[in-house]
């Protein structure tokens, strides 16, 4: 891979995405416990994200690497007013690669411009979270055998959902068909629909969450958050509408899988968990292999 950093999924070509997905499978099938022996990985979480941090730390630990870092800005020198640049240049001395999460958009790209060691973006505000996207793609590949020609249903908050935007951009390399299911207030923004129009890819918009998912290969659920609504009444109207229930799986395709970036609140009923179509916890496990593939690849430990 030519990249030294993983900052935005939009920097990665179709071939580069496929390569990471292949490598993730290799890490799953042939664990490499000593690969990061002697390496120190910094996890700099300028805002807390326990789930993402645990996934990265598990990925590194299972490869024999060591971890330094902080879990939120209050325990770092940022709270004393240190600039991001100074933090990055300091941590450059202590580690071989930096995984960072930051509340400001563009923070990871800026860090990659000042850093002498690779940067992995673990989320920069509402902008990018590329390791999530790559683990989503690995999950699709693993369950469907291919990334090509999928019918993908994105459900919930499609307006502010960074995860669904990046997934759309990445899957647009693979001739996907998209179905958008959301409350009218939280529709997919025009810029993403224009991107699909430009590529000649099909998409359909729905406001009802019904048995149209019978055509889906992938149903990707997201959380509809109260704070996204200016009118609380509007939230009350929709909060129980975009919920996946077990009976809705009855007429779905045999290969269909339900994905969710987690954490879930109520948008997937817990009775769905027992279905073999529920894939979100395995999806989280896939994140560990995908992050191993990314770190090893950026460090040049694997081609």
């Amino acid at each position, binding site marked *: 891979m030519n990249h030294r950093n993983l900052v935005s999924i939009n920097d990665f070509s179709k071939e580069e995405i496929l390569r990471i997905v292949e490598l993730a499978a290799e890490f799953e099938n042939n664990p490499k416990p000593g690969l990061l022996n002697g390496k120190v990985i910094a996890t700099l979480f300028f805002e807390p994200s326990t789930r993402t941090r645990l996934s990265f730390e598990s990925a590194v630990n299972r490869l024999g690497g060591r971890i330094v870092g902080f879990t939120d800005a209050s325990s770092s020198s940022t709270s004393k007013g240190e600039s*991001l640049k100074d933090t990055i240049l300091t941590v450059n001395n202590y580690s071989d690669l930096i995984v960072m999460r930051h509340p*400001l958009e563009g*923070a990871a*790209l800026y860090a990659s411009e000042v850093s002498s060691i690779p940067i992995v973006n673990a989320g920069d505000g*509402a*902008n990018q979270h590329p390791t999530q996207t790559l683990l989503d793609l690995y999950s699709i590949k693993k369950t469907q055998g291919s990334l090509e020609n999928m019918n993908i249903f994105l459900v919930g908050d499609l307006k502010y959902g960074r995860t669904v935007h990046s997934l759309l951009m990445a899957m647009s390399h693979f001739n996907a068909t998209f179905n958008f299911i959301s409350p009218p207030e939280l529709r997919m923004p025009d810029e993403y629909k224009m991107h699909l129009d430009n590529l000649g890819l099909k998409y359909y918009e729905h406001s009802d969450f019904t048995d149209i998912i019978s055509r889906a290969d992938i149903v990707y659920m997201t959380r509809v958050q109260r704070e996204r609504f200016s009118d609380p009444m509007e939230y009350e109207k929709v909060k129980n509408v975009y919920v996946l229930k077990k009976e809705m799986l009855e007429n779905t395709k045999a290969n269909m899988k339900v994905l969710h970036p987690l954490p879930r609140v109520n948008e997937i009923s817990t009775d769905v968990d027992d279905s073999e179509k529920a894939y979100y916890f395995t999806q989280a496990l896939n994140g560990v292999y995908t992050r191993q593939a990314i770190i090893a690849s950026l460090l040049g430990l694997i081609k």
Partner: protein
Amino acid sequence: MTKGKQLSVSAIRNGTVIDHIPAKNLFRVISILGLDKFDHQITFGTNLDSTKLGQKAIIKVSEKTFVGDEINRIALVAPEARLNFIKDYEVVEKSIVKVPLEISGITKCVNPKCITNNEDVMTKFHVINKNGEISLKCHYCEKITDQEHMSAEI
């Protein structure tokens, strides 16, 4: 030298004449080029009649020849601008501005959560030119700053 039009603002001996600036953007051009901090003689005229622009402005900067990216930065606010390089009162070379592919440091990103609005980071944009309609995609946060918001910030 050519008679008439250019004489509406007194001639300069050596330097650059920047013509066909939309009158309303004169002061933004001055600020983008840093002319407010410039030591040599500068004269300008504004609200001059122009068949193309309605009301145009013209700036004459003595002892300075603008080149390349230095001048292309004004393309955002004066895309039709023409440059005449003057030596001994004669036009020795003409040039137009080109919309650059990238632009740094002249406008703020529209996104309040952008790193460039919160840390000491110079802004950088990729210029999107859609049929003459210019907008800027932030190199850092990927958000689009459109013409309307640029105007407010420059």
